[in-house]
């Protein structure tokens, strides 16, 4: 069975998308910003890691620097948004375009090889099962760290910023700084996913990030649909996002296996995400009860 044999690989690759989706979750769900920097910063992470490792650097250090590069990209988007008053979605698009040039300059050309046979890497498709275990460890550590962080005083203020900026300001929270920080954290994680992707696939390519935000959103949405009924615990929700990435990639592989024209895959992803984003809106618009349903709804004892 070709499909079953492909499963460990699909799960591993899905987990990499899942890590990226955690980054998307931070901006899209926690900060309530649609950040399109992601399409560029995942490639930045891949490019930085590839060039540093092929240049002889230790892979762990290279991944750390890839992450910092992603954070720098998030910082730029944050400045464009908060200090220059550009809507977040446009700020992300501008940074993404800048990163296209930056990524080409990092790699020197449109793609670079990172063969696992020649360099020491952390994950590779040549050893799928080992890679799977390492990626699982990555996900667990990342989710636990984020859980701890968002439970701190500062982490709670970042959540409040996304939830209600006016209240946050009134409570002394620096909303602009928190947005910049959130964008940096998000894109740092996305770039980390990019560095893992480059190692796993043995190359980095200027087109690596195209449509990454859509995959990230798909993972977030699928994850939410799967785990939201189980628990609203933050760890469960983040695990759901990784699971969403894995499910997405397995579906993706299945569709390829079934012989769908691969040219149509991006169309398929976008349409699926569009429908999933529309469902809550339709529910609210056509299936909800009127807002002021019964008398005394406003009562203190409701």
């Amino acid at each position: 069975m070709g499909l079953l044999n492909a499963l460990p690989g699909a799960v591993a690759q899905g987990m990499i998308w899942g890590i990226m989706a955690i980054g998307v979750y931070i901006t899209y769900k926690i900060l309530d910003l649609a950040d399109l920097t992601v399409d560029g910063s995942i490639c930045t992470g891949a490019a930085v890691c590839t060039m540093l490792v092929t240049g002889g650097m230790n892979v762990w250090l290279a991944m750390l620097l890839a992450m910092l590069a992603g954070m720098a990209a998030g910082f730029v988007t944050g400045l464009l948004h908060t200090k220059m008053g550009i809507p977040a979605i446009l700020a992300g698009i501008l940074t993404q375009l800048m990163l296209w040039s930056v990524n080409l300059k990092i790699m020197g050309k449109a793609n670079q090889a990172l063969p696992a046979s020649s360099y020491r890497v952390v994950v590779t498709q040549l050893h799928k099962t080992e890679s799977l275990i390492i990626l699982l460890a990555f996900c667990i550590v990342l989710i636990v760290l984020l859980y701890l962080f968002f439970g701190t005083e500062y982490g709670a203020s970042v959540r409040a910023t996304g939830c209600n900026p006016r209240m946050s300001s009134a409570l002394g929270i620096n909303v602009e700084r928190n947005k910049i920080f959130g964008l940096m954290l998000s894109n740092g994680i996305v770039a980390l996913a990019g560095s893992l992707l480059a190692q796993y696939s043995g190359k980095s390519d200027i087109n690596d990030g195209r449509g990454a935000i859509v995959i990230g959103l798909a993972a977030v949405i699928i994850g939410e649909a799967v785990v939201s009924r189980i628990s609203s615990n933050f760890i469960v929700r983040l695990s759901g996002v990784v699971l969403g990435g894995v499910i997405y990639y397995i579906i993706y592989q299945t569709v390829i296996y079934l012989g769908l024209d691969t040219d149509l895959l991006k169309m398929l992803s976008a349409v699926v995400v569009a429908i999933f984003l529309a469902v809550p809106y339709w529910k609210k618009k056509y299936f909800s009860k009127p807002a002021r349903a019964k008398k005394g709804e406003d009562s203190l004892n409701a």
Partner: protein
Amino acid sequence: MLKIENVTKIFNPGTVNEKTALDNVSLELDDGDFVTVIGSNGAGKSTLLNAVAGAFFVDSGYIYIDDKDITRLPEYKRAEFIGRVFQDPMTGTAADMWIEENLSLAMLRGQRRGLRWAIHKSDRELYRIHLAQLGLGLEDRLTTKVGLLSGGQRQALTLLMAVLKQPRLLLLDEHTAALDPKTAAKVLELSDKFISEGGLTAMMVTHNMKDAIAHGNRLIMMNEGKIILDVSGKDKSDLTVDMLIEMFAKASGREFANDSALLG
């Protein structure tokens, strides 16, 4: 305690929508003053509160709290001194966060937020005691999402959050206007309680003249960006709604235009 000195704010200057919201306003509050602010729509009541809170910077003039010039201080830094409750019950709380999380955010108003764990066991005890004062049973619902509460419950919670860490100044901006009469009365009663028990200095904007007379030790009336009446002490407690309407007509040269100020 609070000193507003010749403050002017013009919205949309140089356009057809130009509006002088605050016209050379000066006002001084003493420690423990509870000032009610009335006036018709567009008189500058909320603008005055927002100018003090730092929602925007004023065009000219100065604002001091305890002799500290806060005129150019951003909103989030002024939060160290100021507790606020807004007209819209949705504005003052974070809907997706638990009651205890909202309280822990309020507990740190104006303080550095570090990497300490946000909520400790001992905090919860404290939150329960404070929530019990509201008399709404919220003390047993610490891990309920605030978004699930009614408007009145959220406004009561916002009020508690505004005074949880004692503010130098409490700003209430028509904070009962969006509530039904019974709920509004309850929230007003709680406001009185917190202000008198904490000895707070407070400003309360209201559309309701009766409330403006019944609460606080001082009343100011605004019209077209100016303070046209400022009464306190015995003069204030002797006021009636009719007298206020008459004073308004005399000071502004026109009838009090807002029905909602007369009713209720």
